[in-house]
Each structure stands twice: as structure tokens, then as C-alpha cells.
């Protein structure tokens, strides 16, 4: 085996391989998947000199620890966290040279949910339908990391970026999601529509890569009956019978039978991926561009 690899010493709560996902297969029931905080994934790739579609690691809440098998450049971004090599602190949000055999530890996120680990050369597990992303809804792509697993890396292509630290947005104290109403806003009462765009919801701890679940006022339907299954987009705000909105994230199902009250702008979903349970959420109605 090539020595371009890292061993996983501590997989963390949920660490997955992610790239830009596999859009274009929704008609076969294949979710798009991909990094939830796409700008953070793109940034760590840029910091280590990778192309934007290279595969990185996405950690959840408590980071992970890796042992490189060769000297390599890494960068950690997304949520701020403590990064150490053999116990000594190193830079977060900047390229770091790590020696073979040392222990790179990515600590718990300070305040958000997901950190991203860019490894020069990118992770080169076998792609599925053109993507190396782990899709937790349908099980496509590599399984989540486990302690002791080994990830193969590609060759370092270009020198890494020369920066001391790259600025990144802080996790949201309040999550403001801009939303265009529809296509099924007519399934809800005027009161429910008002509540949706004026009341405050909270991020639920049941949130995951499939959807950001919320707690708060129940949105009442104006009609009974079932909606026939229809195609779903990234950012769709689906309202199940209990009335609590769910914002669809990267691993969302491609079709669904609950009415979509509105759609969150894609650029706002990176912040949604970093909002810890209990974060207040407001949906602000905006006009279609």
C-alpha cells in the first residue's frame, strides 16, 4: 500500500468523507449528498492546494484524530476547534505541515457542529456515481469512519496556500434563513404562514445530515388528505403532520409526500449546518430572484 494515507485513531461521534456530492441522479432516488458546510470544505481544500472537488473529512461535534503515514499538509476549518499535533497546539484555519507518525487531533467544535479536515492530495476512496461522499440516507459512498480504518490519499499536486489564518464565519447565535414561499404554501392556513415567517423556532437535537429539524409552533394545514409524492430540492422546508418544519440538507430524500411550505436559499444552508441544537431559527420570507 502507498504511504500516502492516514490512519484513523479516533473516529469521533460521526466523521464522514465528503466532496461536492453526486447531483444529477435524483430521478433514480439518489440523494445529492456532499459537505453540509460547502464553503468550509472548499476553503480547507484551497488551503492545502487541492482542487475544489477533492474529498475532505466532515466531523460532528467532537472532532477526530488521525495519524499520517507520511509527511503531509493539512488544514482544519469550519467550526473553530483546538487542533494539536502530538499534544502541541497548531493553527486552525491555516495550512499545517504534519510529520509522518505524529498524532493530529482535531478537538471538539468550540460552539458549532461541523469541522472540515483538508488533507493535501485529497482522500481517494472509491467514488460512487462520480462522488466520494458518504450519504447517510441511502448508504452510498464510504461508511462513516471507524477507529483503526485507513484512508488513502492522492498525491500532493501544488504547494499549499500561503496564509496565516483564513477568516471564517462564526457559528450563528441566531439562525436566519431566507425562504421563498411555495410550492405548497396553499396547504397551510394564513395563521400558519404568518407563524412560519414571524415566530422563532429552535434547532432540534434530532437534526442530522438529512434535515435540520425544528421545535416551535405547529403549523396548521388548511386542507386534509395526502399529497402524492413529488420531487424535493435542497433547502425545501417540509412540514410533516405534527407541524414542525424540517429543512432538507444534503442527504435529503429525492421525493417526499409532505407539503413544502417554502425553500431556503442554498447559501444560507452552510450556517444551518453549524447551528447547535437549541439555536433560535427565524424564517424570513424573501422574493424570488
Amino acid at each position, binding site marked *: 500500500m502507498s504511504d500516502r494515507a492516514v490512519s484513523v485513531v479516533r473516529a469521533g461521534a460521526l466523521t464522514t468523507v465528503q466532496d461536492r456530492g453526486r447531483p444529477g441522479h435524483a430521478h*433514480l432516488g439518489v440523494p445529492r449528498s456532499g459537505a453540509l458546510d460547502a464553503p468550509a470544505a472548499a476553503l480547507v481544500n484551497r488551503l492545502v492546494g487541492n482542487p475544489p472537488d477533492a474529498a475532505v473529512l466532515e466531523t460532528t461535534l467532537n472532532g477526530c484524530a488521525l495519524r499520517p503515514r507520511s509527511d503531509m499538509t493539512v488544514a482544519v476549518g469550519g467550526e473553530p476547534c483546538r487542533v494539536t499535533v502530538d499534544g502541541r497546539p497548531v493553527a486552525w484555519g491555516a495550512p499545517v505541515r504534519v510529520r509522518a507518525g505524529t498524532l493530529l487531533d482535531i478537538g471538539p467544535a468550540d460552539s458549532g457542529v461541523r469541522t472540515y479536515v483538508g488533507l493535501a492530495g485529497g482522500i481517494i476512496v472509491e467514488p460512487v456515481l462520480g462522488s466520494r461522499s458518504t450519504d447517510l440516507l441511502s448508504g452510498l459512498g464510504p461508511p462513516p469512519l471507524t477507529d483503526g480504518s485507513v484512508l488513502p490519499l492522492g498525491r500532493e499536486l501544488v504547494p499549499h496556500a500561503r496564509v496565516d489564518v483564513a477568516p471564517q464565519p462564526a457559528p450563528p447565535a441566531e439562525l436566519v434563513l431566507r425562504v*421563498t414561499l411555495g410550492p405548497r404554501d396553499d396547504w397551510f392556513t394564513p395563521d400558519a404562514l404568518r407563524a412560519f415567517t414571524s415566530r422563532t423556532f429552535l434547532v432540534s437535537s434530532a437534526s442530522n445530515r438529512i434535515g435540520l429539524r425544528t421545535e416551535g409552533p405547529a403549523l396548521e394545514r388548511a386542507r386534509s388528505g395526502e399529497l402524492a409524492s*413529488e420531487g424535493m430540492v435542497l433547502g425545501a422546508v417540509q412540514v410533516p403532520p405534527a407541524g414542525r418544519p424540517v429543512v432538507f440538507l444534503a442527504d435529503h430524500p429525492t421525493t417526499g409526500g409532505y407539503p413544502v411550505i417554502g425553500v431556503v436559499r442554498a447559501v444560507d444552508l452552510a450556517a444551518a449546518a453549524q447551528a447547535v441544537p437549541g439555536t433560535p431559527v427565524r424564517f424570513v420570507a424573501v422574493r424570488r430572484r
Partner: protein
Amino acid sequence: MSVRVLPVGDDALLVELASGAEAEALHAELLRRRAAGLLGAREIVPAARTVLLDGLSDPGRLASELAASDVPPAPPREQAAVEIPIRYDGPDLAEVAAHWGVPEEEVARIHAGTEFRVAFCGFAPGFGYLTGLPPRYDVPRRATPRTAVPAGSVALAGPYTGVYPRASPGGWQLIGSTDAVLWDHARVPAALLSPGTRVRFVPMGPAGPVGGTS
């Protein structure tokens, strides 16, 4: 054909039609337009009575075009039907027979005598919603979904037949099982069934297809 076009977010459209057959026809027409370079859409997702177009550069203009256009009926598919070998041995066979008001053997005969089409996919990679049974054979979902349905289970719900590509929870009525591989991402194409595919179920004896020599 009456078409209602609903905007979805900033760059998608949901086209709503009067029936599943119309949705199938529009889907075929949209694929034709995309193949001819007349339509730029990242995703074209048919469903029960809608077609979703996602990743559009100018959804406003396309919405007016679609609202004004006439959709020809779907052309018949040239390709042969995919044959799925089946054992009618599902645990809900008796319940389905009771719903249909026929003996269990008759469920197998009716089901295997029907030509199905994949109306759309969803739920899991490679899971197709197959139409073809007359409306009198609609069955409800199970009141309590199973937590684990084995891969290869052939099942009914509402107007649809489906085959579970892998083990998963499910609420459909299980009438049989198959060894066919519905999804294999190492295969091209990965999905055995895609929207528009014609399908027949071929009953198997314990040793292979009934009447077969292999």
C-alpha cells in the same frame, strides 16, 4: 393537457399534471428536449403527478414556455421489458388476496400477467414505483410499518408495485421475493429500473423459472 407550473426556490420548477400518464409524457418530452440541447436542467425528477426541474438558469422563462406548450403523449418505448424473476411467497400475500377478493394463487396470476412501467423512482436508490395494475387492485399500506424488510422483497402499496433494493424499514404489503439485483453501483447503469422502464414479473419454481430449462 392542463399544466400548472409552481416555482420552487430560486432555480427550480414543479410542473403539476392531471394524471400519472401525463407526468410520464411530460417527463419523456423534457428528456428529449434536454438531449437535444434545448433545455438546461441538472435534475428532471418525475413523481406521481408532477415533474420537478432543478438547477435551471432561467426558471421564469421556462415556466411561461411550459404553461403555453402542448405535450405530446409519451412515445412507446422500443426496448424490451425488464424481466424480474419472482417467488410469490410474501408474508402479506393472504392479506392482499383478501383485499382483492381472490384466492392467493390468483394474486400471483394477476400480478405476473401485468405489464408494469416505472412511473418514478425514490425512497432509496433503485427503488421504482411501478404502475400497471388496474385501480381495483389498489391496497393500503400496512397499519404498522415493518422495521426490517429484506432486500428483494416485492411489495404493493396504493396503485404501486415496488422491489426493495436493500434491507430497510417499510410499510408496503409484501407479496413475493426476487434475487434480481435492483441496484449495484459498480454496474452501468447502477439502477436496473429507471423512470419509463417496462417491467414484467416472471414466476419461479423452487429450482428456477417455471417452464425454464436452466
